[in-house]
């Protein structure tokens, strides 16, 4: 079992309170996934040319100032860092290839969680309630967010194995379910040069879809192919810089419920995580049907 949550603010005032909406949802779904959690938040793009990189360090005392100083010295790219304990967001003109090359050439206990112009990702071990408090999720602002609470069934409990998974830029995916063919997907993708970071089944789905998008598919086209290629049980909630996208597999035995109003779109594994949202009693509430692609634009 795992829990998924998503929230898309359709009106400006709600964007300032994005964290306040998503945190009770995430905490509630802690009952479905108490071992680790993660959150991806999408905000408007930063100043021209800048990209955002989210990092996780195993050591809560990690020296992020030295980290950014060395990054700047080695890459000649200006960079700024905002750090809270294990987590930091680096803002820089450096492109993802530069960051990947720099990081892989050094023996740092640091994991790159996300790259893009609008995405920030947080992942950690522990109860979602504690993780939300540790990184002050309630203060987060943005257009939309995707969260996950994990009850691990098929690979280790670690921040790297927690969701959301990311691939490429400004794309993330959370998954409730289990895939039965992640290794065959992975072997096919690795032959095409796609690199994996964990042995988690969800990473295979995430990299498969991102690979299709790099080949020119829209996310929706990639998902149509995904229905053919991904074997197993899944409710997948994905986000790009301007979209939330939700699908369930043909069996649809992993839950999802959507509440939609003029103000917001809220998605969760269970209605009880939505029950306290303003105006939810008058929302259009529905359960997504199997193999249909639901997409909302921020």
């Amino acid at each position, binding site marked *: 079992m795992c829990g998924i949550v998503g929230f898309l603010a359709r009106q400006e005032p709600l964007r300032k309170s994005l964290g306040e909406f998503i945190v009770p949802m995430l905490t509630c779904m802690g009952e479905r996934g108490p071992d680790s959690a993660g959150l991806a938040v999408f905000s408007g793009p930063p100043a021209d040319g800048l990209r955002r990189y989210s990092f996780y360090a195993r050591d809560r005392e990690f020296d992020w100032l030295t980290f950014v100083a060395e990054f700047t010295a080695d890459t000649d790219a200006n960079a700024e860092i905002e750090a809270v304990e294990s987590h930091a967001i680096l803002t820089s003109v450096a492109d993802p290839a530069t960051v990947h090359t720099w990081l892989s050439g050094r023996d740092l206990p640091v994991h790159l969680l996300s790259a893009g112009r609008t995405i920030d990702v947080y992942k950690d071990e522990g109860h979602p309630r504690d993780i939300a408090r540790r990184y002050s999720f309630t203060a987060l602002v943005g257009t939309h967010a995707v969260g996950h609470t994990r009850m691990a069934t098929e690979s280790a409990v670690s921040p790297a194995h927690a969701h959301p998974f990311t691939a490429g830029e400004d794309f993330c995916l959370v998954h409730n379910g289990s895939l039965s063919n992640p290794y065959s997907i992975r072997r096919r993708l690795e032959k095409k040069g796609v690199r994996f970071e964990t042995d988690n089944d969800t990473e295979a789905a995430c990299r498969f879809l991102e690979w299709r998008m790099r080949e020119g598919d829209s996310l929706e086209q990639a998902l149509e192919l995904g229905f053919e290629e991904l074997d197993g049980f899944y409710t997948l909630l994905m986000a790009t810089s301007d979209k939330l996208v939700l699908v369930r597999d043909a069996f649809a035995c992993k839950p999802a419920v959507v509440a939609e109003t003029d103000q917001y779109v809220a998605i969760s594994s269970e*209605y*009880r995580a939505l029950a306290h949202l303003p105006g939810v009693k008058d929302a259009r509430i529905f359960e997504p049907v199997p193999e249909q692609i639901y997409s909302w634009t921020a």
Partner: protein
Amino acid sequence: MDRLISLDLAKMSVRELNQLLHHDLPAQGAGARIDILNPNGMHNIAVGLDVPVEVDIRGHAGYFIAGMNKQARVTVHGNVGWSVAENIMSGSVRVKGCASECAAASGRGGLVVIEQDASSRCGISMKGCDIVVRGSVGHMSAFMAQAGTLIVCGDAGAGLGDSLYEAVIYVRGTIHGLGADAREEPMAMEDHARVAGLLARAGYPDDTAGFKRVASARSLYHWHADAGQEY
């Protein structure tokens, strides 16, 4: 007039509520009407009742609502999550909104009414209860259903009645595919009477014209060595 007891889940836990319904209420005797406020999608509300009371759940509720129900008449004024009225024994459970998966799963007796849609696996493994869905049902409904009646006023999803035993399904709308060993059969006079009677009990005195009967072809009842095992 029965006593009206109002119980607020914003002020008590589901466990406290259910203990009250299981122990205090029968001990007090006589009839009662129970209003349950602020269900807020919580699970296991009014599970395991065995008293002839009216229970109204005022809002959307979660999983396993009114599971194992005996005698009580439970109405949910909203949607429910998975497995509403699972293993119902007697009495009735009515959902004013939609029901998620596995509504009335394994139900042995009593009546379950879903006023809007029920999603996949409605009536899975039902063993004698009656189910009336005013809207449509999702895929794999009445899977391995053993006894009882499932009436669907709308459409039925793929794989309807897969591996059906002696339960009978009636569908008024489109059937998007029958499961293994389920087959459409002609409607006899008894079938119209059965549908009319059950619809009337559910509060829908409709004309029964247009209903189709789906029952087991019974070809899976015995193992056939020559069948190639391709179902």
